[in-house]
């Protein structure tokens, strides 16, 4: 959920910055913003310091989990279309038949 919110803020943020900005700069500025918030948290000690120190690790780990999850879900739901291969074979037969009649060379090799 935090991640979703983060993506949303990223998107809002990217609208605020001018379009001419190179993409790597956008990403870097997001990282800088996050670091600034983290340093702020460290300074103000709203959350116990021992927890704040661990936040970057949580961040990296959650980023990695997000990536693995997306690949995993994508792989499980990978859309396949075996019936299309059969339909294509039929289309090929039909096309060969027609083209042969018209005098087009459709012999393989």
């Amino acid at each position: 959920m935090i991640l979703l919110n983060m993506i949303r803020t990223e998107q809002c943020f990217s609208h605020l910055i001018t379009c001419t900005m190179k993409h790597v700069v956008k990403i870097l500025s997001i990282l800088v913003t996050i670091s600034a918030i983290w340093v702020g948290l460290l300074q103000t000690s709203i959350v116990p310091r021992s927890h704040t120190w661990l936040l970057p690790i949580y961040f990296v780990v959650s980023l990695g989990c997000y990536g693995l999850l997306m690949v995993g879900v994508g792989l499980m739901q990978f859309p396949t279309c075996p019936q299309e291969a059969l339909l294509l074979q039929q289309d090929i037969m039909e096309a060969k038949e027609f083209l042969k009649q018209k005098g087009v060379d459709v012999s393989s090799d």
Partner: protein
Amino acid sequence: MEQRKEEKNKYSIIIPTYNERLNIALIVYLIFKHLRDVEFEIIVVDDGSPDGTQEVVKQLQQVYGEDHILLRPRPKKLGLGTAYIHGLKHASGNFVVIMDADLSHHPKYLPSFIKKQLETGASIVTGTRYVQGGGVHGWNLMRKLTSRGANVLAQTLLWPGVSDLTGSFRLYKKSVLEDIISSVVSKGYVFQMEMIVRASRKGYHIEEVPITFVDRVFGSSKLGGSEIVEYLKGLVYLLVTT
């Protein structure tokens, strides 16, 4: 807006070929079968195929007419990007379709590209394999894994706004294709990704339609280490230049 005008839309279908003598004949037949009531031309850019692709195209011109099939060959293999630029020079339509000659892109989807463009007025309609109604056939687990990984990486880093970055079955407004192709330098898989990312950054309206992708040449879909390195380089290149 443009569609409201009295003049009819014309679609120039650019197909780069190299040793596709059988496939080019099949694809031309299928295009004529599925594109009815639409004005179009097929521009075959052949890079000096030794297998007689150009002879077959000339035979097809006899069947379908030289105004519908244009053969614009080049002396040798000069790359995909320049093939599109070459074909573009000879295109007389106000829209351009680019597709592969190997039948992994089926012409039966052309009407849905055209319909989508007319409905939305989009500058680019791109075919996507990764939504409902789309799909891939003929890939092993490794190939699927690389594809998903590459896609998640690109989506996370580039936020391109389209689901299938490396697909190459697309419909462009001719002026838009001319505008972006001149600034694209990448080759291979990255070429298609750079095209769509640059278009997205320039603020062009991009729409997607589902397509299926049937990989018939099993050897061609192998993704080796060097391709992965090229892809990552392309990703970094796009990060710093767009």
